[in-house]
């Protein structure tokens, strides 16, 4: 029998009066990094807060490591949450804030200080550890929140828009850190409305829009399921016209277009697997040297656009 997933959502809904936060979300999140994607107002923060026990679901059930996070406070020993708020005890230093937070777990003075120092080092805040939080920049406050979320070494880390307010260097190093947490076996759920940020981090996604779950799972598998949208493939080579004349005769190809501003061909197909097989034969027969082959719509943004476009049309 398979072990239950660390995070389990069963028909989770949350309303704020008449306003819907999330509606009927079911799914599970396992080890590694999972991206929680959707535009602003999609319900990402609400869902994460329900998972962290800060909000009670109006309907449905959340289980974190088999426990209800709203009832079992001990789950916070194994769960870290970087939330979207910006409230801090501004009079404290970053080190004191983390150290005192760890004392709240019941850790002794010495381990709390060591763990706080380690967490600040991981987030690149050692130099600012003894500065008052009130003097921190937005990016530094964001990193301090992340340090707060991971200081107690949790198995599950929920990150709500952790890159907001960070400079490009900070973004890069934070993404690298998140990737390493995922590789180390932690369950990391990271939300963002900037889809390409998550695209470089993980292929495993949960997509939300208007409080509903649009898609869940591997991005490429989700893309393959969108059968009404042909796959776009771009092939760059020295002789795009010769290649396009062969491609147009193939049954698996719907449309071929020679690019004007670059030496390549853009094609659309409903049968990418068959196309890749036939393409190999053509390349050998024609002696065409392919320099680059990409799928411009096999990414998070394209999938999200397709999914939301479908919903918009349904709505209309």
């Amino acid at each position, binding site marked *: 029998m398979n072990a239950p997933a660390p995070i389990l959502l069963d028909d989770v809904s949350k309303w704020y009066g008449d306003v819907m936060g999330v509606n009927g979300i079911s799914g599970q999140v396992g080890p590694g990094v999972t991206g929680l994607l959707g535009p602003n107002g999609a319900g990402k923060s609400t869902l994460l807060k329900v998972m962290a026990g800060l909000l009670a679901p109006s309907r449905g059930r959340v289980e974190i490591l088999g426990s209800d996070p709203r009832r079992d*406070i001990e789950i916070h020993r194994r769960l870290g949450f970087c*939330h979207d708020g910006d*409230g801090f005890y501004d009079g404290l230093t970053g080190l004191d804030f983390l150290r005192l937070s760890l004392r709240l*777990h*019941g850790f002794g003075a010495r381990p709390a200080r060591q763990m706080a120092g380690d967490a600040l080092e991981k987030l690149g805040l050692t130099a600012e550890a003894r500065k008052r939080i009130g003097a921190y920049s937005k990016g530094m406050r964001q990193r301090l929140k992340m340090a707060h979320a991971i200081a107690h070494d949790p198995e599950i880390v929920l990150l709500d828009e952790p890159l907001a307010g960070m400079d490009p260097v900070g973004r890069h190093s934070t993404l690298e850190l998140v990737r390493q*947490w995922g590789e180390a076996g932690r369950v990391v759920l990271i939300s963002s409305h900037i889809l390409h940020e998550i695209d470089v981090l993980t292929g495993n996604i949960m997509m939300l829009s208007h409080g509903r779950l649009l898609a869940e799972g591997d991005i490429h598998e989700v893309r393959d399921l969108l059968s009404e949208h042909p796959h776009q493939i771009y092939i760059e080579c020295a002789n795009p016209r010769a290649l396009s004349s062969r491609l147009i005769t193939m049954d698996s190809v719907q449309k071929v277009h020679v690019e004007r501003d670059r030496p390549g061909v853009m094609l659309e197909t409903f049968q990418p697997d068959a196309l890749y097989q036939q393409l190999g034969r053509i390349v050998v027969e024609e002696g065409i040297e392919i320099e680059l082959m990409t799928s411009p719509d096999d990414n998070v943004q394209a999938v999200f656009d397709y999914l939301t476009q479908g919903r918009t049309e349904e709505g209309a």
Partner: protein
Amino acid sequence: MSATAAAQPLPSAPAAPRRVALRLAQVRAVFGLSLRITLRGKRIWILGFIALVPALLPVLHMVLVRLFTHVGRFPPAMDFFKNVVSVLYLHVLLYVLALACGLAIVSDEVEDKTLVHLLLRPLPRWAIVVGRWLSTWLVTSVVLVGSLIALYALSWAAQQEFDVGRRALDHFNLTILALDCLVFVFALGAYLALFSCVGAWLPHGERWGVVFCFGWESLITYLPARLKWFTLMYHAQTLFPHKVSVNKLFSVWGEPLPKLTCALILVIVTVVSLALTVWNLKRREIR
């Protein structure tokens, strides 16, 4: 930024069997955090300054007597002390401290959006409330008791200035001062607990608090029958080792309740108020 240590094991959390010790350590941690935040905030220092004002009344009185009368006269220090205590400390300063700090026990954390940091820790909600209430109680008690001691010392010094010799020393009664301080601290604990509950449950808790202190508690003592039992002030006043003004004036409405009963009622109000505050925190959602 280094991420290489992400998978390194950190010291593990304390084991569950040591739960009582753990909970006490957590209350102490909340107490320490809250104390630090309170002492670094402006509010308590402003209140400390306000609390000094009634303590300086003997000096003001002395200066006025010197300036405007030919024959210097200062009332007995103990009488002066008791009057100022029953008028300004009991009916103004106690309320001001309890309102300003009691309401903030939960509502400050909510308004500053810092409550989330506490709720994301494996802390029982009661530990949050008790830890914050204890630290607020300690700080406000230090302010109040400090002011009372200053008032007492200055009253005595003022009388000494006019009434040199043994008569002033005869009035020097540290037991009264100590008992007054104890009653104030005890009553302050009950008021703080009550207002923490008001601040947690009611929006604009300060308005309700002002209505309670300067409306209900003040007016009800002028009404007959036992309505005054439904004030904290009545029970606090009963505990004083000396008569305070309102008691003296309204003792016609019947014999006061026994001191032990009044003390018990204050304890019950404290416990129930704190329990209601904990309940609010358990239900609270952070959007």
